[in-house]
């Protein structure tokens, strides 16, 4: 009892100070670890991109400036030769592949995810079962789903070719993953299959925050469901949807594992991550690969900065 009195009488400012001091020590270990495993390696990677370091001699690199990014040399004939990542067609092909993949996959995942969420938001028998079923693609490791689909896409014995032949949509077997025209399509199908559940669940969480009586009153007023969707539902789930979209976009821009397993070495699907790792580890162009990974980091950083700058993210997290 006595203790309680002294404490309540003590000035709150010292309590606050004690709390803030404690907060510092609580945060310190985590921050130290993040500095070691994230900030330091990131800075070293950026540093490597300005050197000629090789995989076999990590400490033997010398500063070469922007040579890995862009450099030029004027020949005696007056012709200028450019070299570096920024004039490397393979790099720009990877940039284009990644952007194409990100835009198409995120757009379709959002639309299909929203549709699935609308279905799950309705009350019907077996809803729990359906929700459990759509969690399965999400729970399967990416590598495993890549292998599963690779088998289904198999040109000779795959079930996809068999289905499409039976239905009559195609008249000959297609080598889905090997063919340059269909490789990207196969990657997109697998990614959409795997990630739409995540989108659907996030949309569903947004949908469930909308009060039911809103729909009731719209129904009583005789407003067409499609109009209700565009005028009531969509504006209300938009904040949740936007966060999900930015998360998915960042995730799509760094895509690696699915392509690595499903369509290895196909120029139609090589992403920025794939080509950076190839140079870093497999082709012994360590510094060149670092330059490419740094560029990917820069692209993503610009995206995030733009997004925050546009004021769509609540910085303090106080409003939620």
């Amino acid at each position, binding site marked *: 009892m006595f203790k309680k009195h002294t404490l309540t009488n003590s000035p709150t400012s010292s309590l606050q100070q004690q709390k803030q001091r404690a907060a*510092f020590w*609580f945060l310190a270990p985590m921050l130290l670890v993040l500095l070691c495993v994230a900030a330091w390696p990131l*800075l070293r990677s950026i540093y490597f991109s300005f050197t000629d370091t090789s995989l076999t001699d990590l400490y033997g690199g010398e500063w070469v400036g922007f040579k890995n990014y862009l450099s030029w040399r004027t020949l005696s004939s007056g012709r200028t030769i450019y070299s570096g990542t920024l004039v490397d067609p393979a790099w720009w092909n990877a940039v284009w592949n990644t952007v194409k993949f990100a835009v198409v996959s995120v757009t379709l995942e959002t639309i299909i995810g929203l549709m699935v969420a609308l279905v799950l938001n309705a009350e019907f028998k077996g809803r729990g079962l359906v929700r459990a079923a759509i969690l399965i693609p999400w729970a399967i490791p990416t590598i495993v789903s890549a292998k599963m689909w690779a088998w289904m896409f198999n040109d000779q014995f795959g079930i996809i070719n068999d289905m499409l032949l039976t239905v009559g949509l195609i008249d000959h077997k297609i080598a889905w993953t090997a063919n340059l025209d269909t490789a990207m399509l196969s990657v997109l199908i697998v990614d959409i299959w795997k990630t739409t559940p995540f989108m659907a669940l996030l949309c*569903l969480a947004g949908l469930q925050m909308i009060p039911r009586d809103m729909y009731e009153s719209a129904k009583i007023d005789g407003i067409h469901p499609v109009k209700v969707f565009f005028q009531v539902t969509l504006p209300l789930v938009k904040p949740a949807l936007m966060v999900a979209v930015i998360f998915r976009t960042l995730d799509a821009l760094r895509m690696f594992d699915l392509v690595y397993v499903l369509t290895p070495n196909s120029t139609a699907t090589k992403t920025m991550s794939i080509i950076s790792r190839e140079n870093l580890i497999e082709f012994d162009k360590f510094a060149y690969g670092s330059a490419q990974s740094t560029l990917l980091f820069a692209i993503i950083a610009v995206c995030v900065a733009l997004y925050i700058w546009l004021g769509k993210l609540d910085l303090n997290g106080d409003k939620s």
Partner: protein
Amino acid sequence: MTNKTLRNNIAFYAIVVVIVLISVFPFYYAILTSFKTGTDLFKVNYFPSSFDFRNYIDILNNGKFIRSTLNSIFIASTTVVFALFLAVTASYALARVRFRGRGLLLMTILAVSMFPQIAVLAGLFELIRFIGIYNTPWAMILSYTIFTLPFTVWVLTTFMRDLPVEIEEAAIVDGATPWVIITQIFMPLLWPALVTTGLLAFIGAWNEFLFALTFTASETMRTVPVAIAMLSGSSQYETPWGLIMAASVLVTVPLVILVLIFQRKIVSGLTAGGVKG
């Protein structure tokens, strides 16, 4: 009118059936394939035709696969324990103490979990070589912290923010220090959140591929995803689809069961990590 509702109902259930079929079919087909051997493998069947356990026996007798599974279990659990340990205290500070730059710090932590892993690959490779843990499980445990730690901090912070202030105030009045508040008062309340976050971080670590591929050199050090990706048959040109499917089913079934058991919790964890951003 009733005719129309009936039609609408049928259409609705048709959509539901399509959603379920598309979600489940690839996994179902993998299970189907895993029970097929020999020439049976190359006949397309939509329904179970044979039950041959030879693929499962082969993959379980293959010491390398068991070894990879043990590697993965060890790496993922150690990563999760490590991340949760660091995240609980940090998220208390982030959720309950007001200090300057808190918002910026939270944003930075979120940014770390979102930035591309390839951007740190070169630097991490150097660090791992420098410490001398290349080609050991510790290389993965260290590198997985980069995505599990920010994620657990972020989700636990949102969970902790929702705990009632009154409990904490009462404890402060009774003279409890912040450490006592966390360990004695918040921890019991946080158990469900810890289980959810831990499970999600475990799945993330279990599925990781890029680091595991880059930081291992020998077959005995591989994790499950790398082992499955690299599984090859007797000859270079023959892909052992039956074996791959058996291995895939073996590593996926526990995950699917866990996810189904914890489905409500997982959904709330995912939405805490995503929507509230």
